[in-house]
């Protein structure tokens, strides 16, 4: 599974993307796994209300299932326009 990070999530974690193996069934489980890895992940995922997630390039909720998903992206609320 590909993980993508944007904006300050990318900066806190220190990389724009990585490939991982995971048994997580939902986004929330994946976030728990990542938080447990290292402080920089714990810092990036400290407050989920300040984060958004997209599964295969569609916005999703944190309780969404990961079955069949190839690309998970984490980022702050968007500020385009």
């Amino acid at each position, binding site marked *: 599974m590909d993980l993508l990070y*944007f904006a*300050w999530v*990318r900066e806190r974690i220190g990389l724009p993307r990585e490939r991982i193996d995971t048994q997580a069934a939902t986004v929330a489980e994946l976030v728990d796994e990542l938080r447990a890895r290292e402080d920089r992940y714990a810092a990036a995922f400290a407050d989920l209300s300040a984060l958004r997630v997209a599964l295969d390039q569609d916005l999703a909720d944190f309780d969404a299932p990961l079955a069949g998903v190839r690309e998970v992206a984490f980022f702050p*609320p*968007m*500020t*385009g*326009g």
Partner: protein
Amino acid sequence: MRIVVTEAPFDFGAEADAFASGRTDMGAVVTFTGTVRDGTGTLAGMEIEHYPGMTERALEKIAEQARARWSLGDVLVIHRYGRMAPGERIMMVATAAPHRRDAFEAAEFLMDYLKTRAPFWKKESGTAGEAWVAAKDEDEDALRRW
């Protein structure tokens, strides 16, 4: 319908002029242009990051929603990413409709959704260093009227 995501500056005058031009069945054209704003004179520039692939997909989805909801003859969305200076144009939307209310509402709808649902992030740099622009509650609130 045309969706453009580009690093290069775009020619607003030429785009506005060409949009829906030659159409005799559209009475109303609305354009919106967003520019890098420096309210306090302390901004050096802005950098916009985006999510290639998802960006185009999100903008197309938003434009399709507008077309399904209002009677529109055409829709244009152009959005830049990368570095920009104060006063530079970041993006534009344009809508063409037989009647003005449709053109206005669709353009406002496009902007409200683009602001909060298209994966762009702004980082400002200025005299006080660099900072990511925070999303505004009022932008999220603006979606509720649609």
